[in-house]
């Protein structure tokens, strides 16, 4: 988690976000990863670095089959 990510709060609940094991799905595959969630409402935050980094790599790997 980068330092920038720590500064995000859930605006709805006014809660600091926490890392939570979250289920991900793509092209029939399922996997889990720790990402920031609001501890109260459960809203998930995917930072840009994750979306355009590891998630994009994983998308590419699964699509390459």
């Amino acid at each position, binding site marked *: 988690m980068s330092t920038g990510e720590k500064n*995000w709060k859930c605006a709805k609940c006014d809660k600091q976000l926490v890392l939570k094991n979250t289920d*991900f799905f793509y092209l*029939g595959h399922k996997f889990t990863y720790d990402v920031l969630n609001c501890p*109260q*409402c459960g809203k998930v935050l*995917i930072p*840009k670095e994750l979306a355009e980094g590891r998630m*994009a790599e994983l998308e590419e790997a699964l*699509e*390459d089959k």
Partner: protein
Amino acid sequence: MKLEDATRYTEKCFNGEPASCSYACPFHLDIRSFLEKVSRGRWVPAYKVLRNAVIFPGIVSVLCDEPCREHCQRTLLGDEALAMLDLEAACIKYAKNTKPEFFAIPPKSERVAVIGAGVSGLACALNLAQKKYSVTVFEKESGWGGKLPNGERLSSHPRFADFDQDIALQFSAVDVEFRYGTEIKSLTELADFDAIYIATGKGGDSFGLLASWDAEMFTTSEPKVFMGGTLCGVSKMEGIAHSVQASKIMEAFLQTGKASLVNAQVYDKKNCERYLKHDGAVSVPRVIASSPDGYTEEEAKKEAARCLLCDCDYCIASCEMLQKFRKKPHKIAVEVATDMQVTGNLASRALTRQTYSCNLCGHCKSVCPEDVDIGALLQSSRTARKNAGGESYPAAFHDFWLREMDFAVSEGFLAATPNGKNECEYAFFPGCQLGAFNPDYVLKSYEFLSSKYDCGILLNCCGAPAYWAGDESLLNENMEKIKQAWNEMGQPTLVFACATCESIFNMFLPEIKRVSLYALLAEEEGISSIRPYDEAVVFDPCNARNNHGLETGVRKLATEAGISLHELKEPNRCCGYGGHIRLANSSLYEEIAQHRAEASDKPYIVYCVNCQDVFARRGKECSHILDLVFDLKKGLKVPTLDQKRANSVEVKKILMKKECGIDFEPETHEWDGLKLLISDEMQKDMENKLISAADLKEAIWQAESSGYKFYNESEGLFMCSMIKPVITYWVQYKEIAPQTYEIVSVYCHRIHFKEEVKQP
């Protein structure tokens, strides 16, 4: 998809098959491989290729009448065929190790009798002895060799010493019993043997079995008696080749009790006719040996290097996609079939990226001597994947264009006859992108058509996005809608401005009469009004392939404008847009687009707005043919996704008012009134990611109205997500004023996550 359904697409592909010379060779020697090795001075491997095919290279290299040379494709260039006998002789001469291979196989108990020690009988005996059968050769004369075609003994040939040495060499690694001076008068003498091969030579004794001889299986009416060689009316070389084949059939007989081709290789000789075009191959004269003793090593290498190594790879050589994936057509077909046999979550699909990386442009088929269409194979794979449904369908590759199509077939749709009439003779079908790129392309064209013809308007998507996504039901649904509108308009001839639309109609609604806008414009003398360039190249879109009326019309219009036209070396190459590969393989898309932009340094005249979009984005100087006709040239600026949508709405609004007298009221959304501040750099980023400002407004409105958003107090930033069925969008923004937001960052992903949002 069944394997045979997939391989049917590539069954005519002869990539990897023996060359025409090898089909003509009685031994089916892999001449391509032999010459490639000789050309590199790899004498021993070359010798092995030769020896394994012809059995007695020392004899064959002298006596073969070289039928291969008649089928040497170098002769198509006016050159003499490769000097095969001289090259075989050189190979034998320069190969340092010609010792036959010894096979460490346990001896077998079955006994084989060979009648006749001519080269046919010897070849059969040698092959079976190598497999460790107990072989006895019966010969009435006092030595091996048999006869020459002229009936003389082989031993009378001036090169017999070499032949004798060759036979001795080949038999040096096997145990064979030779009984010379032993004439077999009746096969009953050989009753103890498990199999008999009769090779008594031309005019020799067939023991009354010749009439029952089977030319394919070398069998006779006696189950264990086989026959071959010049006795059966073939040439000496064919006789050797026959004996090799016969030995394999006899081996199957000895193993199973039944003669079969299970160990043999079967060739279809008709394939001799499959010649290549050899465009660009240079004429090279035959190398003449400097000495009567034959080629020096260097001369042989040079002569062998004249071989064109004929193997068809035209499609691969000219397609970026096929080069990138480095798979031969047959392999792709097998993978397409395998891909559809995958079930359950434990196994992965066999072929996803490649299926969706094909421009479906037809170029492979156009360069293939056998019209093999790999695009059609991959299109069928896309359809099969879509029909199979399930989570493994890569919906993200086509989602953007399917949403565009959804707009064009619903809100963007308009079918109107002119001047309040019920029917019309013509209807303009501009396609969804022409007006989106520039409303005047449609409006001016329609104005022209209305002034000359009884012409209505049909605004819709042709269905190409659904076709390219493999979505048959969506495609058919749209075709039905178009057909209904066309019927209601009195079945007019449709006027097309887009080659892709025209090709889709050609495939799926062939009953609708079609004409190209550019062909109609070209009928008007002197209609082209501006000349943006002195010289230019016409960039024909891939879907205009074989549409000669279209190609000719555009050239006439450009020439009339006073432009000196040049032709591209390869016409109808896809600009990159075809097949909607951009999201499936962005790097390949960029590579193809760049190659096409660089295909000529002259400006392009285009007549497909998708080509125009691709080239203008790269700064490649280009003009649409309608820019010339209607003086619409506006530089190379490409409208944004939102401008395109607004342009389409404007076209519909104007035409609906004109023909129906109705004010079109586009669909409105609660988020339309939001104001976004988007920097040029951010706009470019959004265009690359195919994210529109309308998407961002919707996401922000959802977040602001529901309160579900994230806040970064130190930077004064908000962030929210918008989860759509296929793509999840994220936007970071600042609130500048009420309902006014500065966009800071935008991104999206295809992976879904599980989010259980609770009311706080």
